[in-house]
């Protein structure tokens, strides 16, 4: 299942870069994200609540940055499972920043998400919609945060 999208942020690319690499800010932007904590230089641990209709699943994820080109792009892989091990999630993610103007940055993101286990039985269409919407919600929140000047950097 693939999720992708593009949105623009009214901020210089370097600032956007600092935001997307700032775990505190990402907690606030990722829908359902309850916690992010760095494990080491390249890895984060995250807890995310995914709600699909009446079904709620809390995933414990590890995000590992596999490639980082400062200010331009970051590739990561996500692995994790529900607390009960009932579903397993893995994803390959890519975020690419493009400078459109001095204070305008385009964020392109894509993620190949694979879920197996109980949630996988739940209907492909719904999961896709849910994941697409997560992307849109993320973009909205991210823009809001940047507009509000919220960055620890």
């Amino acid at each position, binding site marked *: 299942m693939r999720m992708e999208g593009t949105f623009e942020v009214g901020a210089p690319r370097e600032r956007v870069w600092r935001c997307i690499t700032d775990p505190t800010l990402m907690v606030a932007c990722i829908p359902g994200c309850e916690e992010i904590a760095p494990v080491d230089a390249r890895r984060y641990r995250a807890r995310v609540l995914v709600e699909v209709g009446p079904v709620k699943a809390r995933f414990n994820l590890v995000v590992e940055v596999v490639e980082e080109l400062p200010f331009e792009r970051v590739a990561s892989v996500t692995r994790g499972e529900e607390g009960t091990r009932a579903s397993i999630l893995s994803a390959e993610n890519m975020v690419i920043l493009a400078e459109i103007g001095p204070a305008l940055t385009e964020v392109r993101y894509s993620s190949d998400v694979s879920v197996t286990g109980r949630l996988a039985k739940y209907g492909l269409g*719904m999961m*896709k919609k849910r994941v697409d919407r997560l992307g849109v919600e993320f973009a909205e929140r991210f823009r809001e945060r940047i507009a509000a000047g919220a960055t620890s950097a």
Partner: protein
Amino acid sequence: MSALAHLHRPATIEEAVRLLAAGDGERVRLLAGGATLVAMMNAELVDPAELVSLAAIAELRGIRALADGGLRIGAMTRHRETAAEARLAGAAAVLREAAARIANPVVRNMGTIGGSIAFADPAADYPPALVAADAAVEIAGRRGRRQVPAREFFVDWFATALAPGEMVTAVLLAPPAPGRGSYDKLCRVSGDFAIASVALSVAWRDGACERVGLAVGGCGPRPLHLDEADALLRSGRLGEAAARRAGELLAAAADPLEDVRASAAYRRRVIPRMVERAVAQARAQLEANR
């Protein structure tokens, strides 16, 4: 392993609401006919700690006429009963036809209208029918009863206007009006969820449309309905041009799924075609009645 520790069987709505309020919407769930909830429990998709069975609450059962001639369909009314209800005639027949298309005879014998709409599967049959019929949903909570128009009840994929701790107690219909109600479902095999469905409810008097309700199921997070499309059909007297335009508007407003049943593109494509057919059939009946 199921975490279910308690199965309550309250005798009144108030008691059910009290038991429900003790949970957070995930830990405690209402059990109506079981057709959806138990299936989800078997698939380990939900794992409630407590269930509140509504089976023993007399007030939730059956269909009765209201003082104004309207109908009150209790939340625990089985699809089979709704499908056989003679009073759901004329414009209200849309509900009866939708009930008759749900799943199969055995599941219709188990599933209830309250359970179905509270689950709010956008590909289910009742939601577009209730929206087309402009029904209202009666809701009970700690603070008493309230009514929500069906058009506002369905909020999102599997999400309704029910607040935490609230339950559906009935579906309310205005007094049945002469006219035509129809429900057309496109699905892979009989009893499957809809790829797309068209619910149409037309009330007429003396050969003139008084009210038109048109809703499409399976093509968005909730039943697809546009006041503008209803108005077009009414003012256009169910004419071909109005039907075409209404179908186009609905297709443009659709946000269909891409799933194992069909592609989003196909769903968009069939919406106007199914709408035109449903309207043409209504028009033919209206003309025959004239």
